[in-house]
């Protein structure tokens, strides 16, 4: 029987939201394909608990995977793919799997769709819908080769309610064969506070803030009051108003929060590429013709230097 293998990402034993989301989706796809659903856990986490979201089996690989080592991750996943006989592999589109899965695709002579926003089945094949050309065009990629690999964007699927079941756990061992690099140092981002990449609410500021002081005073302050992550347009980070790690856009972070406030951001294609799938977009901009208004659920055409303090006051109250 064919099988869908979901990579259940975790940090120190705490599963990412993606684990349940991908297992939920895999269960749906498996029903159409007549496949089984299993999960793989690299390192130490409660693998059996993944049964609650649809995994009948959970493969575990012992070892310390807390710092990303390409060789170890790739060889471990390869061993599990072989042990499980899985012909579809789903993983979150985080750095590690964006880095590792193409190598597995080449190793197994399969096919891969990266950064998918939707998965479905057609004629027994996985169909992945994904953004191309900075998100200005979406395309369906039908993966005919097996194994088929897909990395999936944040928040693409809802998390299913847990059923409370337990997956059967099977340990898999692996041999290190892939050349790798050694991690010398991990540098924390030069930002503090809520991680904009995974925040449920984001406030982002553009170049019109005019200075780092004003950016901090208005955008960062509003973010704090709202409990939101702080982002910035490329123009704002290039001007030094915010660190590069907070840049949202094609060459920065791609976010998909429930609420995205675009303050003084015109809405160029490259910026939209980083936030267009946000659930609710609010735009504040002096220019009524700013393209951002075409994408916003709510817009205020006014001076941000008046609106942002008013908004901050209203939310504080």
């Amino acid at each position: 029987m064919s099988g869908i293998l979901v990579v259940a990402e975790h940090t120190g034993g705490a599963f990412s939201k993606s684990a349940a989301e991908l297992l939920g989706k895999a269960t749906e796809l498996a029903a159409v394909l007549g496949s089984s659903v299993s999960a793989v856990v690299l390192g130490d986490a409660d693998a059996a608990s993944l049964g609650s979201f649809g995994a009948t089996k959970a493969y575990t690989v012992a070892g310390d995977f807390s710092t990303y080592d390409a060789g170890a991750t790739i060889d471990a996943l390869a061993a599990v793919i072989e042990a499980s006989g899985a012909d579809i592999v789903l993983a979150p589109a985080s750095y590690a799997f964006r880095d590792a899965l193409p190598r597995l695709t080449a190793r197994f002579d399969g096919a891969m769709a990266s950064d998918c926003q939707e998965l479905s089945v057609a004629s027994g094949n996985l169909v992945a819908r994904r953004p191309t050309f900075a998100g200005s065009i979406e395309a369906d990629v039908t993966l005919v080769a097996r194994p088929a690999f897909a990395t999936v964007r944040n928040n693409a699927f809802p998390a299913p309610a847990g059923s409370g079941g337990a997956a059967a756990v099977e340990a898999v061992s692996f041999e290190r064969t892939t050349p790798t690099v050694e991690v010398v140092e991990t540098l924390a981002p030069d930002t503090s506070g809520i991680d904009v990449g995974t925040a449920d609410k984001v406030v982002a500021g553009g170049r019109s803030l005019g200075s780092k002081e004003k950016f901090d005073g208005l955008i960062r302050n509003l973010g704090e009051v709202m409990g939101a992550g702080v982002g910035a347009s490329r123009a704002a980070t290039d001007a030094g108003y915010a660190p590069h790690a907070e840049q949202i856009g094609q060459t920065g972070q791609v976010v998909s929060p429930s609420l995205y406030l675009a303050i003084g951001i015109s809405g160029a294609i490259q910026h939209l590429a980083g936030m267009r799938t946000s659930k609710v977009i609010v735009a504040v901009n002096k220019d009524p013709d700013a393209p951002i208004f075409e994408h916003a659920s709510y817009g205020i055409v006014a001076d941000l230097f008046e609106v942002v303090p008013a908004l901050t006051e209203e939310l504080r109250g």
Partner: protein
Amino acid sequence: MKIGVCAKVAPDPNARLKVAGDGASIVMDGVKTKLADYDEYAVEEAIRTKEAHGGEICVYTVGDKKAEKLVRGGALALGVDKAVLIQEEPTDPLGVAKLLAAAIKNDECNLVFTGKSSTDEQNFQVGVMIAELLGWAHVTQVTQLSFEGDTFTATRNLDAGVRQVVKGSLPAVITCEDGLNTVRYAKLPAIMKAKKKPFDKVAGADVGAEAGDGRRTVGNMSPPPPRPAGKIIEGDAATAAKELVRLLREEAKVL
């Protein structure tokens, strides 16, 4: 060092694109093309590495004949020694990687630079696949790089603004990220001289590789569905702010 740069031709990122009638491609008539942005960083990094450590650079590209003009006006004019166009039309990133890996292997390169992804399909796959096919190490999304003999130290961008410094040895594939370097552009005299540099056009069979076919199909391309028209909230700053918060709480239910 024998350095290979894998580069592709892509539509200008500022171009407004239309989907072709077959839903499986973009209308390219009248669309400006350039060397994909991240591949430009790869060319630049190769040149800087050659300037610092010596060696030879070859640019490899697959499929698009427009590459010749771009590569002669760019890479070849800037310090790249030769270029190779593999005249095949692979149908997936693995096919592209198989052709490039074979050419790189034949030329006995020991270091490959390529962009972290192309700016069109943005798959982020080819560079890493080449490393697998060659049995080399790889590092993706590199923003800083230095060499000491055959070992290198690289800084890579992970998620959420986290960066990591890694050490490895050649042979390796490095995929290039924004911020790695500042790209230089060629001046006319150098472009004129580049006309004499070798630009070989070869078939897959000449490098001993087959791209293969049928592993995937692409279709149903369309712009993303437009969002329903939004509400413009009228009134002075205080009024609009109040109304916005009310709507976000009661209507959108995101606050």
